[in-house]
């Protein structure tokens, strides 16, 4: 018998409670659970859109292509789950004219799990959300992440089994943290941040030398770099302070002390307008 996850049980309880008391809430909240069995998919384009609320993504171990739990205001949104064999589109669409903003109004939630091992080009677009994204274990061949005003954490907790040529992380006005970026297995990572605080953890298993481009508008950038990883930082900034502890300047770039001996090297091109850049070394 298949093991039930705690999350699924909790969702079951939520559905039961919400369902048996249909008139308890004044707002038109709806809870939807959608899932689809794996049926030999080989390569997918997966696009996930979510507007506002809590948003989680994690890998799925239960033989499902996806398992999505949504709680949304049915006056404003409608769920989307389209699959044509090659392209999978998940999330919500805005159908209403009014979006409730304010305390107690944006309690929507989307919990999504995606199949491990199925190669996929993953596009994640979300707006004003609190996101917890664990992409570890997914077989990503491409990653495009775009977020608006959010508080988001991206974690690649396990090594991506596929190689990504270029991963794109586009962050608006956000508090954004990305951990284990080395596990993305990407040749190039492009980070475009508007306003806010961005923390990039360059830990993980780097499979080869890589480049990271960071375009930062206004705010604070935190680079957490594991000891032993060779770093070359090239900065092109206007009014940006750089705390370059552990880096030495050679020519136009800053280098880690062990740059020449490092087995894996990451070159960072930083273009920042206003703000601060902190380099923090972690064991």
């Amino acid at each position, binding site marked *: 018998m298949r093991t039930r996850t705690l999350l699924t049980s909790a969702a079951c309880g939520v559905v039961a409670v919400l*369902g048996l008391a*249909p008139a308890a809430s004044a707002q038109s909240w709806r809870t939807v659970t959608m899932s689809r*069995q794996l049926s030999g998919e080989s390569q997918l384009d997966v696009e996930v859109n979510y507007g506002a609320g809590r948003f989680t993504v994690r890998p799925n171990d239960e033989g499902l292509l996806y398992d999505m739990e949504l709680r949304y205001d049915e006056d404003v949104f409608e769920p989307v789950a389209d699959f044509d064999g090659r392209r999978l589109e998940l999330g919500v669409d805005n159908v209403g004219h009014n979006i409730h903003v304010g305390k107690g109004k944006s309690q929507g939630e989307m919990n999504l799990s995606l199949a491990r091992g199925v190669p996929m080009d993953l596009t994640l677009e979300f707006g004003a959300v609190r996101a917890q994204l664990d992409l570890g274990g997914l077989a990503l061949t491409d990653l495009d992440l775009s977020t608006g005003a959010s508080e988001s954490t991206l974690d690649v907790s396990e090594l991506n089994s596929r190689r990504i040529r270029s991963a794109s992380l586009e962050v608006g006005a956000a508090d954004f943290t990305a951990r284990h970026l080395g596990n993305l297995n990407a040749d190039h990572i492009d980070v475009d941040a508007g306003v806010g605080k961005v923390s990039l953890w360059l830990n993980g298993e780097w499979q080869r030398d890589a480049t990271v481009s960071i375009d930062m508008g206004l705010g604070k950038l935190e680079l957490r770099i594991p000891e032993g990883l060779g770093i070359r930082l090239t900065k092109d900034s206007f009014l940006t302070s750089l705390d370059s502890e552990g880096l030495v300047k050679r020519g136009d770039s800053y280098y880690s002390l062990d740059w020449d001996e490092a087995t894996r090297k990451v070159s960072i091109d930083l273009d920042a307008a206003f703000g601060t850049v902190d380099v923090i070394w972690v064991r």
Partner: protein
Amino acid sequence: MHMRSHKTALTGLTLIAAFLAAPLGAQERTVLSKAVSVGRSEASLELEFQDQERLDIALRDGSVYIDDQVVGAYQAGDDLDAAFRALLGQAVALDDGELADMLVAWTPPDDLPADRKALADSIDSSLERALTRPAQDAAATSETRSIRVEGSNDSRLLGALLSQAGRLGFLEEALSGLDDVQIHVQEDVTVDEGETVEGALLVVGGDVSIAGVVTGDVVVVDGTLELEETGEIQGDVRLADARFDRAGGSLRGEIRDLSEEEGTTVTNGRDVREMRDQIRSEIRDELRSELRNELRGRNDFSLGSGILNPFRGLFRAIGGLLENVVTIFLLGLVGMGIIAFAPRNLDAVAETARRAPGRAATVGLAGTFLLLPVYVLGMVALAISIVGIPVLIAWIPLFPLAAVAAGILGYVAVARNVGEWLSDSGYRYTDWIRRSNAVYTVFGGLLGLGLFFLVAEALHVVPFSGFFRGIFAFAGFVVTFAAVMVGFGSVLLTRAGRRPEFYPMDPEEAWRQAVDPELDDMDVGTEDPPDTATSGAGTDGAAKEDES
């Protein structure tokens, strides 16, 4: 009679059906995807099977739907609603085999009221029928060869029925109450004129044409039944995934659509589904019509559709004109306030708008586009510094207010210029605008700027003038947009009139005008700042030029 029939007893068929159904019932279909939706007014279950077929069951807004067909009614929170939601509560945590097992095993609670129990049984049977139906074999379904049941070859009959195993659920219902049945599987049947078939006639996967007499029921599964002009069916017609084309003839019983699990009587021979679709279409059209009428009634200020309809255009025109006049009046009041409390600022802005309208419009346009970025960047810049947070509290409401105030100041300044121009123009109806009084020029200018809108509203009284109303409304929009851009740009260039770009006149020129009231027009001085500040001559008095 061209029938190739095999006559058998009902008991024999029932035994075969039972024999077939037993092993198939244990073979649930693969559930490829599921969607469980629970809201205040809806609880639904959507299943998609491996063979692309679907089953949708929903309790929505008081109606019970099975595959988008209404099968009954319920009330939110009643026993049926609760029972179905409890079922969904179990379904949400299961997938594929376990989900199918659970759904097949589900039985409605025994304590449901009779009507709700019947609906719950319908849901239950739909689930069982969908989940125990084996997947359609593409090769088998696309097979076009005809299998004929001949003589008493039971093995051929068994084979033919096996190929139609997906329809055994219908067969059980189709055969209920029948005593003597002729069975035809995957073959066409014709009852010629003058022929009589004793008992019931069952055709699975074939077409039937009846010009003779059938003394019992006619049951058609996955086929077409044609009742010719001379044909007679003394029993009922039972259809499952079948069409009924009636060219005449006699039907003593009624028509039942087994796939819908509901009886439907057709009197004119048309197909049941066509009739149902037509009824739905009529209901839909009626609802749309009512909705349109309701919306029309709202737009007509609740005047209804009675005798006041001919005056609708007049009422609209009066309403629109009043709306515009009130707007102009309110803007005029604001203009009077500006004249009273900030005449020099108004002079400076108006002078810039008059002397450099192109530059002002460009700046206004650019400023309009930059408003939002400046607002947001200002908030961010203030938010990230502790010192800036108190300022941020004021910034959030005051910046939009300042932008609106700048727009109004600019518009009033442009209106004053327009009023002065109208005053000088000598038009017949602009005599009342006294150039020497800024209040008159502001009101006159506001009326002038809003003239296109006023005409557009007034045209409501003229029938079929929609096109011209649109033209005038568009012209009004262009004029207003240009005035706002020029005015806003002038406000930005002069820092709200605090730093004049152009000075109304040279001080010496002002002195000459003061001592010579006969001057007719004004020479607008120089762009170089004078040593001493000048008062707003344009507001306080008439500017006259020394022609000598």
